[in-house]
């Protein structure tokens, strides 16, 4: 919590690092590790397991980038950030890459000088309430106490939603998801609101998940994606195309199971270009020819990452929904590898 003050002050001094970060790709290669900003803990997206190894859907993106750049998915230094500290950490150069359920918005892209390099989860803001409260719609929440993570887009959407529906609420600002969970379970707030995926992930960790319901209203668009600093186009390209490689791999049927076989060469030229047996896509990015192969092998393609961390067979149990491939009626779509 005090971090953000420190970071704020350090931005002044630490901007030197920002200026030196013009070549983030070279910095990461020279350092041998990727500094990746993640949440302080949201099961399924980014949380350390019992052995202290970070895992999750956002962590998978970090590992894929590390594998693409350094050839080693474990060469990642995870930096936990809160809703408030994340942008300062990225702007000051403390992290190279932020993969932390961050919503792509106009002002963050344009005014805060960040570069979103894709969307790895299409989300929307929802509400969770205890079942015995008997609430069936967010419009019934007049006068409710709402736990909300500060410094997020959800905070602004919440204000807009209650304002436009002409009902009142009492916001309880909190810093991290863990804190929100504790406050919500203690009954210090009636409602917890954040991205619907985050609510599902949080509810999955409850002792009695069935006692809590997600209200039907989704009150915003929250395209969540990784981002880097503005102005370093080479680095932005590396991270953008790593995510695209994971998506394309699912589309082309390249999985961590068959990748060894496919990387020997296939009849499909796009698979060959993706896996580096044809063309020079890797060299164009300033990476090895097998960069995308390494990225996919790190945790599987996009669909595998989804199923393993947050999919329907996990406790979090999110359906693909909007996050299905474009070929299956979803929004997940990668530009072609050529």
């Amino acid at each position, binding site marked *: *919590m005090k971090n953000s003050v420190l970071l704020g002050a350090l931005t002044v001094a630490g901007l*030197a690092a920002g200026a030196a970060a013009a070549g983030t790709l070279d910095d990461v290669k020279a350092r041998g590790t990727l500094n990746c900003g993640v949440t302080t803990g949201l099961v399924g997206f980014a949380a350390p397991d019992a052995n202290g190894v970070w895992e999750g859907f956002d962590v998978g993106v970090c590992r894929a980038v590390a594998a693409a750049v350094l050839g080693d998915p474990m060469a990642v230094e995870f930096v936990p950030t809160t809703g408030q500290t994340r942008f300062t950490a990225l702007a000051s150069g403390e992290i190279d890459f932020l993969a932390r359920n961050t919503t792509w918005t106009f002002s*963050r892209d344009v005014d805060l*000088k960040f570069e979103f390099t894709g969307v790895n989860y299409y989300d929307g803001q929802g509400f969770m309430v205890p079942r015995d409260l008997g609430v069936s719609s967010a419009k019934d929440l007049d006068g409710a106490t709402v736990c909300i993570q500060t410094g997020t887009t959800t905070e*602004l959407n919440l204000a807009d939603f209650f*304002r436009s529906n002409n009902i009142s609420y009492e916001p309880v600002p909190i810093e991290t998801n863990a804190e929100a969970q504790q406050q919500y379970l203690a009954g210090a707030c009636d409602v917890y609101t954040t991205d619907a995926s985050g609510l599902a992930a949080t509810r999955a960790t409850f002792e009695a998940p069935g006692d809590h319901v997600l209200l039907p209203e989704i009150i915003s668009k929250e395209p969540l994606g990784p981002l880097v600093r*503005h102005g370093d186009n080479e680095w932005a390209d590396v991270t953008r195309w790593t995510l695209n490689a994971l998506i394309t791999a699912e589309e082309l049927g390249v999985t961590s199971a068959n990748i060894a076989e496919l990387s020997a060469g296939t009849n499909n030229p796009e698979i060959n270009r993706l896996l580096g047996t044809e063309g020079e896509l890797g060299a164009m990015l300033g990476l090895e020819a097998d960069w995308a192969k390494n990225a996919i092998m790190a945790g599987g393609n996009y669909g595998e990452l989804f199923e393993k961390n947050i999919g329907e067979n996990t406790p979090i149990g999110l359906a693909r929904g909007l996050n299905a491939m474009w070929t299956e009626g979803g929004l997940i779509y990668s530009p072609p590898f050529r």
Partner: protein
Amino acid sequence: MTTLTDPPKASFRLSQLIYDTRYRSITIQVIAMILVVLGLYWLVNNTIQNLSALGKDFNFGFLTQPAGYDINQRLIEYTSQSTHFRAAIVGILNTLLVAFLGCILATIIGVFVGVLRLSKNWVVSRLMSVYVEGFRNVPLLLWIIAIFAIMTESMPQPRDFKVGGDAAMILGDSVAVTNRGVYVPGVVFENGLLGAPLLNWLLVAAVLIASLFVIRIVRRRADATQESTGIRPTTWYQQLALLIVPTGALLFLMGAHLQIPYIKGFNFTDGVHLRNSLIALWIALSLYTGAFIAEIVRSGILAISKGQSEAAAALGLRPSRTMNLVILPQAMRVIIPPLISQYLNLTKNSSLAIAVGYMDVRATLGGITINQTGRELEGILLMAAFYLLLSLTISGVMNVYNNRTQLQER
């Protein structure tokens, strides 16, 4: 015979700047000055360069933009459509509120504990030692979080107060202690003379202060009469009337009445809601700083020579009057200077509010506003300026008081 010769003409050599004690101190100061200026220049220049490298500019225009977020505790009118500047003011007022409440409670606790720690009663003095050492040696943040956790985890939820719930309001069904805070009856003005409740309260305070001034004049006059005639006129009924009548009349005029909180929907409505975050921060700051003030008070009392209390005892003064009339007034001269720094500490420590989600200036201007607008440098500078100004004000006012309590020597 003696001849007067001119003293050898002082020819200034460059080496004198270092070896001659007359010049050395100036040389060192000049060099230090140059280094400081260079350092400042480097910092500012570096910042400007790096800001432009990041494509950012330096401007305070964001303060006039709509803030977009809500604040739960606001002493002035504020909605999510208000500007970031207004959000900052709301935060500043919240900081001032908790600092003010904290300083008062910490002083009361400190004076009590400081005096009791010198008590001859072994149990009392040991208990006070435990309190002082316990609070001085554990970080403030832990106390804030601990008190907040106790409030949140162990108190009933508002819906437990509904009919059939297992919690009940106390003090004649007027106060509800919940895990969201304490709801107490509040005074509302049916027909306020001024627009905002805050202004009405200020009006009441102004009238009250004016009455106190008049009461002082009455007392002075009684003193003068007593000195000239030897008989003190009875003035207590005048004083009482002066205290009650004007304020009471004003409150009546504004239609003031008590509003008792009651449960409606999800929460209690009406009354005053003292949020957990405010209570936790207030109590923790007061207990923590109170421990330091207790030590200051103790040292101040110990600084007064024993002869003073012996002389008072010889006059037949009871111990409590000795303390109030003889020891403490003298001890104040020792106590006030370090007390000023404790007030400053408390005020600055209130920025730990972020730990419990109390919306002080650090949480509004220095937190959400910075985060939503990306204006770290401007926000932090404004916040630093505010804390600087506040600290200087507190220390200035307290120093005026200090000068007035100092021994006047002629």
